């Protein structure tokens, strides 16, 4: 089935099998930041923004995403660069495997205007991290969100 995806501002038209997951299509299109960490849609490493909301791209068929506007952690704009800077300064990444999911989710939270540490924690609760213990990630997002 032919679908169109606008990823990080770039339009892609691809022909995909219905069973193909969005995460695999994105990776095949070169957006390698999107990662697969589990098979129960629990870990959130695959999180991207789809039509403005964070979604687990491993839990979406590419055909469902036809016509969607998607942003991945490969993306760059002022907010994303602020987040990268904050992640770096706060040491919010260790092995880096969850970092894409954390960045896209954080991007969503900052753009939406998250208002408290509690909201940041709630917002990030759908991305698992095994390395950092979360505190530095939370602090990095709080800084960019002005909390």
């Amino acid at each position, binding site marked *: 089935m032919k679908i169109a995806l606008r990823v990080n501002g770039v339009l892609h038209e691809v022909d995909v099998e219905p069973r193909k997951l969005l995460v695999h299509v994105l990776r095949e299109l070169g957006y390698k930041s999107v990662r697969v960490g589990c098979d129960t849609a629990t870990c959130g490493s695959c999180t991207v923004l789809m039509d403005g909301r*964070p979604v687990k791209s491993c839990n979406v068929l590419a055909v469902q995403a036809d016509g969607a506007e998607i942003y991945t952690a490969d993306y760059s704009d002022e907010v994303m660069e602020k987040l990268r800077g904050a992640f770096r300064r706060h040491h919010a990444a260790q092995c880096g495997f969850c970092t894409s999911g954390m960045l896209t989710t954080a991007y969503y939270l900052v753009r939406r205007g998250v208002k408290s540490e509690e909201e940041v924690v709630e917002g990030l*609760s759908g991305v698992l991290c095994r390395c950092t213990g979360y505190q530095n990630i939370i602090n990095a997002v709080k800084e960019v969100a002005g909390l």
Partner: protein
Amino acid sequence: MIPRFEYIRVSSLPEAVDVLSRREDAAPLAGGQSLIPMLKLRVASYGVLVGIGRVRELRYLRYGDVVEVGALVRHYELEESPCGFLRGVAVRIGDPQVRSLGTVGGSLAHADPFGDWPAAMLALGAVVKTAGPDGAREVAIDDFVKGPYQTALERGELVAGFEFRCPPRGAYVKFARRHNDFALAAVAVAAEVKEGHVLWARVAALGAADRPVRLRKVEALLTGAPLTADVIASAAEVAAREAQPPADFRASAEYRRALLSVAVKRALGRL
């Protein structure tokens, strides 16, 4: 990875019903948040998935005297609902990403024994609207959830939406090991209280049976009773006795019983 299937995207309800009635091996795909994991783990397999995500008729959300929620309303849309009870349930479903895509209709059709929306709908006394080859039906929620992962939907039928009144008071108390997990036990209460007395109450529970159920003995005790600490304590006790919790590696029956009792107490305390 997922087994092969045919994908038919529909943009109207009649189209959806048509495909679902003609093909025995067809299932509707809304948000996919429950269905796709099952496909990935190969515990379910279908010949056809009918993509109903773009069926506009099912996306309505109207707040009047009666709240009308279309089947394709996504969980996140109710996180800031003017109806407090709905807000309290929506924020406890899955995690933020799941809430972006998962739908209320999908949740009811899936009828997970520990599904938050099925319990909430029971407490709301919702009417489930369906659409099928023989037309539209209205099924009382009490008759809709028939067992674990089993509903009253017939072949070719879809959940179209829900209707209920936003309860004047309500609360959802959920106990889970991690913040976003499925409940070990949960209680949803919807009620009207006037001059300190309970006019009516609907109490639904997860973990009290092999499916979401109403705790009718608790409801009976509460109806007409003053909402005092003593009454709440009695209600909690009755809940413990009324429940027939399943035991699994996540929790024993005994412990679920205790959790249900506490959940009833806390939910009533929040009214």
